[in-house]
């Protein structure tokens, strides 16, 4: 059997067989890692094109193989990937530091999410977890001010026309500096938490020293919830990094953290992705989840919106153009119901057109009708181009 690069598993949050072998080689101990690496090499040539998710695993693979298989002849190539990741991470942090100083100087609390916090604090290694951008979160109440400050300092929103709608319905916005370095400004960690999180998340945040600055990072439980739920949705770049990230966070967690996970899962109504993620890690990586926590999550009830959205999130194309009009509309209605905080079908239906207008960049209702009719037609023609791949 020979795996093909970018096969049907491409983009899916759960690894295909080749990705799973690579992850095992990068994460497991001793013989298990070596066997996985050998199996991967038998099935795949490192010189063939790698999907982006596998590529981002190489620094971690280097660190693990240099420990368990130091005579591996491909180690220098893998070390090159590590060096590049280390270098890029340093640059991403360096380019983002003035923005952090600006926000802190204006009295705005900032919290680092994803790689900027995971690398130094959870992995204890600046190169093993590649970063494409700096993810910074502020309180929802500070989002407008933070955005204005960053814009004044030369950071440009990637979608200038969508700022107003994003602040209302979104959770984050991508910005670029003059040289193209990226910073994601978040005001919510998860779009599932738009109506649920706030001060509580900040109260439990931990401090992190970054040169002359003190910033915040999520507590263990929030970091786990974030990497899992954020990672468990279809993405053009296979988001399989949620697996090493989650395992790394879980290694640091104690009993109290698991209780907090339960609390967060209940508040955000994210038991479906969390149960599936934890089950996957247990099955494939032997991750230990306290039995009573698993039971507590299993016993939580789920609503229509959670079920519909979870099902849709795992569909290839859920974040891109619809393969068909109604499944897309169904997905968006699920997203809206999660975000609206309204109960009942009628109030949600009443607010849905405004949300659709957000997703279609503020078009009028007539334009909206034409827009969706056009997209339905293009969807039928299997057109897959869409400029908005990763913002639910």
């Amino acid at each position: 059997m020979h795996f093909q690069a970018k096969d049907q598993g491409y983009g899916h949050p759960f690894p295909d067989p080749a990705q799973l072998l690579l992850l095992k080689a990068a994460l497991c101990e001793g013989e298990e890692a070596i066997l996985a690496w050998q199996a991967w090499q038998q099935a795949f040539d490192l010189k063939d094109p790698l999907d982006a998710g596998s590529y981002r695993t190489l620094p971690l693979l280097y660190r693990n193989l240099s420990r368990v298989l130091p005579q591996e002849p491909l180690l220098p190539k893998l070390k090159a990937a590590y060096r590049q990741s280390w270098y890029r991470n340093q640059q991403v942090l360096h380019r983002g530091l003035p923005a952090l100083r600006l926000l802190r100087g204006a009295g705005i609390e900032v919290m680092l999410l994803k790689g900027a916090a995971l690398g130094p604090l959870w992995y204890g290694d600046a190169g093993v977890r590649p970063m494409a951008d700096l993810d910074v979160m502020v309180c929802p109440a500070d989002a407008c001010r933070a955005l204005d400050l960053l814009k004044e300092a030369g950071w440009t929103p990637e979608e200038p026309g969508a700022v107003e709608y994003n602040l209302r319905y979104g959770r984050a916005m991508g910005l670029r500096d003059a040289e193209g370095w990226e910073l994601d400004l978040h005001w919510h960690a998860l779009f599932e938490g738009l109506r649920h999180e706030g001060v509580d998340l900040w109260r439990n945040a931990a401090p992190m020293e970054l040169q002359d600055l003190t910033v915040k990072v999520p507590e263990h439980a929030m970091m786990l919830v974030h990497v899992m739920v954020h990672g468990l949705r279809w993405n053009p770049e296979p988001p399989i990094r949620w697996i090493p990230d989650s395992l790394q966070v879980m290694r640091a967690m104690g009993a109290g953290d698991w209780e907090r996970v339960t609390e967060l899962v209940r508040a955000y109504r994210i038991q479906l992705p969390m149960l599936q993620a934890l089950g996957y890690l247990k099955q494939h990586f032997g991750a230990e989840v306290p039995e009573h926590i698993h039971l507590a999550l299993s016993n939580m009830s789920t609503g229509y919106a959670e079920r519909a959205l979870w099902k849709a999130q795992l569909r290839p194309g859920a974040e891109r153009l619809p393969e068909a009009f109604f499944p897309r509309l169904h997905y968006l209605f699920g997203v809206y119901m999660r975000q609206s905080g309204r109960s009942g079908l009628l109030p949600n239906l009443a607010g849905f057109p405004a949300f659709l207008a957000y997703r279609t960049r503020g078009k009028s209702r007539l334009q909206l009708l034409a827009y969706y009719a056009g997209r339905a037609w293009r969807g039928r023609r299997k057109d897959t181009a869409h400029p908005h791949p990763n913002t639910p």
Partner: protein
Amino acid sequence: MFIQERLRVNHPHAVHDTIDGETIIVNLKNGHYYSFDKTGVAVWEVIARGGDLGLLLSCLQEQGGDNAVGLGDALSDFVAALLREELVIADASPSPPEGAMADAEVSALAARLGGTPEPPVLHRYADMQDMLLLDPIHDTDERGWPRARIE
């Protein structure tokens, strides 16, 4: 001559790490990337931990004998390059930093390098875009370095 000076790493501009016997550094002021191994790593460790560089050289010369001829000049050139690239700067403080590397640690570090210490070489990689866009699997040699582009 630089061997007798007290030096320190040029924080926060110079960020460094040592991975499996290789020290990697980025100068964030200009984006240049640097690398060295073996004797260079020992020199860097002594500087980074506030140790006595002169003692390191003495130990290496003593244990190297004839193999260490010219090592003083090589170390001096290496340190001069670190200064020129602003990876280290003169440390103007009157005494070594608290917790500085003890002489015994410096001697032990020298001993680990053995009797034939290689002259340290500072590899510099000055094209940031190339570094970021490099395909580490296909564009590197068997040692994992884009050798043709290294200065």
